[in-house]
């Protein structure tokens, strides 16, 4: 069913091959623009860039083991209303999942985008990446990739990929229009390019790339990686559940939170224009603080910390796609991702829902079933 092609690597390096492909997307694929992570000229960081000039995609680097933000938010900005042309967006699997959630929440649209995904080996935290990349980002990306392929793993010095990535069971996107495959592929020779949708096939046709074939070992390679990650994930669930099993433990877990709300800003699916915690709803009367303090003799300032995290869990855990940007953004190293993913595993299972899996699945809170949760409601409906 899926049409398969290949991007030749041969004499060039991987990045050069990919850059060639991106350029072709703009030139031959009739794309108005391309959203792709690139090394910015002024500093050695990788940021999503919106490219319309094919010549300006020459520092694109989707291999860099970093994503400073979840780019789904950028795609949402580009598609909330008609943008006026087709855009190819190169995203990690978790970014695609986040974007699917945002589309369900009416914060974006698939109408004018072509989703291009790359197999993902994981990413370092923003700060770690800067150290890792040193002066030559492109070289660092290749080095990272070679380490992984050669079996040396993802760690470098005292740096390793983030816990979110270690626990990620979706290194390959099944929802993109075009999938660029590396796992189990002989990337010295070529990259796999697989059309997953009708739109993907059409595009593939236009690009006129040589036909390829999904190598036999790919499935096994994916399964092996996923199984390692699931093992890590399940251990994480267990430890986090234990660490937050009552209110006191939870309070301690979140103890060094300063209510900066960075996690909410970094979260790709937290889509509110303004978080309720920064609105007048939580603009308490000064006398109220005194009342609270009097009741217990002491209150922690700022207040509402546990309330904030629990509210965000209540609102967003069913949409959590596990990208880990919350932890990445936390200035105080609170394991936000860990608790979010742990709770999300329960809430999503409760509704037989997996965030980001498919556009067809309605978000649980939009669906009303009379017979749901009789054990909670006590009634028959």
């Amino acid at each position: 069913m899926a049409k398969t092609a290949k991007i030749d690597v041969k004499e060039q390096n991987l990045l050069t091959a990919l850059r060639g492909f991106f350029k072709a997307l703009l030139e031959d694929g009739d794309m108005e623009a391309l959203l792709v992570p690139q090394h910015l000229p002024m500093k050695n960081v990788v940021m999503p860039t919106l490219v319309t000039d094919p010549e300006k995609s020459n520092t694109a680097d989707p291999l860099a083991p970093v994503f400073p933000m979840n780019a789904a938010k950028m795609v949402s900005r580009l598609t909330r209303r008609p943008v006026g042309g087709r855009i190819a967006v190169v995203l990690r699997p978790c970014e695609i999942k986040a974007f699917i959630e945002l589309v369900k929440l009416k914060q974006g649209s698939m109408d004018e985008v072509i989703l291009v995904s790359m197999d993902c080996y994981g990413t370092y935290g923003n700060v770690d990446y800067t150290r890792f990349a040193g002066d030559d980002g492109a070289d660092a990306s290749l080095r990272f990739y070679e380490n992984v392929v050669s079996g040396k793993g993802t760690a470098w010095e005292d740096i390793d990929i983030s816990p979110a990535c270690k626990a990620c069971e979706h290194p390959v996107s099944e929802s993109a229009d075009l999938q660029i495959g590396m796992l189990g592929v002989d990337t010295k020779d070529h990259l796999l390019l697989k059309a997953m949708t009708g739109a993907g096939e059409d595009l593939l046709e236009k690009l006129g790339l040589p036909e390829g074939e999904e190598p036999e070992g790919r499935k096994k390679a994916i399964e092996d990686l996923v199984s390692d990650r699931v093992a890590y994930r399940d251990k994480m669930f267990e430890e986090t559940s234990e660490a937050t099993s009552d209110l006191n433990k939870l309070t301690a877990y979140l103890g060094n939170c300063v209510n900066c709300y960075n996690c909410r800003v970094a979260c790709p699916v937290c889509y509110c224009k303004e978080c309720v915690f920064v609105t007048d709803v939580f603009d308490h009367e000064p006398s109220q603080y005194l009342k609270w303090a009097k009741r217990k003799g002491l209150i922690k300032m700022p207040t509402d910390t546990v309330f904030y995290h629990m509210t965000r869990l209540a609102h967003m855990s069913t949409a959590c796609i596990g990208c880990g940007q919350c932890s990445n953004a936390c200035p105080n190293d609170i394991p936000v991702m860990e608790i979010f993913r742990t709770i999300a595993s329960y809430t999503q299972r409760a509704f037989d829902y997996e965030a980001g899996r498919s556009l067809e699945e309605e978000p649980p809170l939009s669906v009303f079933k009379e017979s749901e949760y009789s054990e909670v409601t006590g009634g028959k409906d």
Partner: protein
Amino acid sequence: MKKKIGSTLVVGSGISGIRSALDMAEQGYQVTLIDKEPHLGGVLTQLDYQFPTDHCGMCKMLPLVERDSSSQYCLRKGLFHENIDIMLSTELVAMEGEPGKFQVTLRQKSSIVDQERCIGCGECARVCPVEAPDPFNGGLTDRKAIYLPVPHNIPNAYVVDLDACTHCGECEKICPTHAIDFGKEERKKFRILVVDDELIVRDSLKEWLLDEGFDVDMAESGTEALEKMSKEHFHLKLLDIKMPGMDGVEVLKRAKEIRPDLPVVMMTAYATVETAVEAMKIGAHDYLMKPFDPDNLIPLIVNLYHDIQSAGVKEMEVGSVILAGGFDSYDPSTGKDTYGYGLFPNVVTSLQFERMVSGTGPNQGKILRPSDGKEVKKIAWFQCVGSRDQQADADFCSSACCMFAIKEALLAKEKSEGQIDTTIFYMDMRTFGKDFQRYRDRAEKESGVHFERSRVHSVETTGKDDGTLRVAYADTTGTKHEEDFDLVVLAAGQRPPTGAEEVAETCGVVLNPWGFCQVEGFSLSRTSSEGVLVGGSFSGLRDISESVIQASSASLEASRLIHSKGGGLAEEVSPETGFRDVSREMPQVLAVLCKCGGTLSESADFDEISSWLEAQGSVTGVHAIDSLCTHEGWDELKETLQGNSANRILIASCMPYVYARKLRELGRSAELNPELMEVVDIRTLAFPGRDTEKEAVHQEVRAVLSMGIGKLKGMDPLPVATSRIVQKALVVGGGIAGMTAGLAIADHGFEVTLVEKAAELGGNARTLHRTIEGHSPQELLEESISKVEKHPLIRTHTGAKIIYSQGHVGNFSTSIEKEDGQGETLDHGVTVLATGGIEAKTESYSYGESEAILTQHDLEEKLAEGGVEPANLKTVAMIQCVDSREEPRNYCSRICCQSALKNALFFKKQNPETDIYIFYRDMMSYGFMETYYSEARKAGVIFVPYDVGQKPEVSVEDGRPRLSALDPILGREWLLEPDLLVLSTGVVPDAGREVAEQFGVEVNQDGFYQEAESKWRPVDFIKEGVFMCGLAHSPRSIAESVAMAEAAAQRALRILNSDRLASGSVVAEVRHSLCALCERCVAFCPYEARHHDEDEEMIVVNELMCQGCGSCAAVCPNSASVLRGYRDQQVFEVIDAALENVV
């Protein structure tokens, strides 16, 4: 508030009475709703679960627009509406005058207990020594002589059952609020004249009555009595019938001339009972049987005293009267075959079973055997007990029992997690209503309810004396079985309500042969007396949704009549007072504490609570009142508010629900928005006997007071929004239903546009020539068309179609394409969809292969054209349920059985020699239709049941149909070569999904319109302002379509009636600056009151449609959607207050 345009009296406050009363009240009429029982709700108070949802849902009848006019809480707990006066324990005793201007006399029995003072504490029942069977639980439990009529009313006051009461007076002594008064003091002033020629009778009566505290005088003859009467004043006369000289009847006649209002009670020996009954007819109040036994006689006289002395009589003028007396249940012990009812404790009626599964029932909902309290494992239901039984004088089907038996079986399954074995013994499973068949199928296939087609032979004990019952029956093949059950439930049929004859006589309406109210031709609500309408089961044998439809049909007719008479009985209403604008003031709370007549002082110290209150921020005053629920108490509150600068009022008393209506009044008198008043319940907390320390009580009281203050501080009510209404209607479909609805609306003075796609008006009725009752649809059709065409307010477009419709309640805009191809856009406030249905086409049973194979519709037309000569017919066969009652068309078309019966009877009448065979699955001759089924059997029509898995087979040879079918009873095959084979193919909707999509409404899986709620809102769509009627809703007879059309018009009129409609004060709003337009709230809103306006890029709330449920606020993650009166800050404050005093 609307201006009152007339008034009406509704007799009976069951479902249909409440529906009619609300209909009329919502339209602006003043309604008096009376019930002879001391509670609202009729039989529904006893039924917790309604099929098909298997829960209640009664509250869905409450108003959706102008919500603030009425209560908005559980309707089983109570009801108020500012246009409805409710009088309980009240009967209609006289009616005079003419339609549009009736003088009615109402009589309200005293309940002995002052309903205002009673706080429902239950002390009286505790000390009452009398136990009597509790009718609320169908006699399965006992209650005291002073009791709560239903356990869940709010407020819930006790009443005295005078028949059971021994007048010991214990309750009067213990009542903490002095609410009970047996009137002993008053008795001294009550003069009784005893007239009897026998001294011993006179003396003993005098002695007994003096003992009871009455004032007694005596006369030994009629002459002496009349003499005394002319000189002195008496309140009651006890009069012997058999006296020398002038006899009692003669004395009565003369007495009526002198003192017509003096109640006279005849005293009679057995021999003269008939005379006594005669005497009643000429004005005697009652009669007493000799010989007298003081233990029996005295309570009777005391009751008479209460009847005469304490009963309130009210006379009033009303424009129309709606009778909604409901029904009584058949008592199986009175029948020839009682199935052991009354003999074996484990034989109960279906109503008793409903009580057994109820949480307020004898075992809190556990299904236990009445004989020994053991868990029930196996239950049998017997259908048609006292129905379809000519021996029980019931040649009718009670219509509702099949469905509630299935429901009860499902409840038994559910309560026992499938453990109880359930069998329903039936003759025909009458699943003729919308979606009934699928409910039955689910019960059978998914829940394992066993259906056994059999009339049970007998019920005996097993001989083991453990209460187990042995049921003997024969199955359809004639094989005899014996099976043991723990419980037998008798589906007791419906009977006319007690007192039906008296009411009929009072109102001059005719009853049918079974004692139900007779209705006119094609109307289900018009009686033989103009201006008197009938709603619900009193006209016979209806389930809830049909009762609700018919109740609305009755209110429509009542309203049409009042309207035609000019609605001249308008009650003056003081102009609406404006509320003070307090939006810029700081909150100043006046706290009012009710001491509940001092009963709370034992457990709470009001001084301490008052000083605590005074110390609270925003509280600017505290006022304690002895008893707020009394008139004096309320007046004291009003006075306190005069000139008080407080802008918030916190009332600490009891039962916050009850205050909603009072607060509205108070708001008007104090010019303060009632939204700025809050009632909290401190009585429950501070009521003595909780065995709680005073300080703990105080703490709880403080918490609820703080919560109230917190809520009040955050209240910032806006003036209630009103929306302009386009006072015009669009009716789509020009059949009988559409025309009826159009006329009903136009007759109230509103413009109607009627759009029909065919070239002529009339729809289905054009092809119908007689009904089974012998009425002529053609006459109805001609009359309707002529009225429509002549009506100055109706514009008709035939050959026209709908192109597009948009808008919402009050403001729709619809484009149509007219016959000439021209387009027109119509503005209208309501839409009625009456797009009809058509006979289903079939390819089954060789249809189309022979001219002798017809559908019922084909036959109807052929008969009308004279294309069939009955005299030449030797054999006619009919097959019912063709392609129906099985997937994909798994519903009963309800009208085919009557068509078959009608045509079969017609053939038999024309030529008794014709052999007629009707092959059926279940004969659906519900209600009084059953008589025609009986008649057809008597006339020799042969009814052969068949199973859906083994249908008759038809082939055509030489143009003639040949039919073979297995007769399960005879066990042999029928082979017929009928001259005519008539197929009952049922009804399918005509318009299809397209029209529904154009109007943004839903259809069900069969393509019929989907009502908002099958029982409680049967003609509404979820989308407010759009209504349905006729065959497009579900298959139904002409009269039923008419009733539904009237009901739809009634629902429409409540919107059209004023040029502006007010929303409720609690509605949702959107903080657009925070809104991310995710539309979750739009998807979540159960009332379709929100939409995303793409041009303005904002979520818009339709305040009329918003019911203030708060789902949107709950689903919105950042509170961009808020519910007025329940803002986050406010709710936080309330939560904080609740926790504030928690140590």
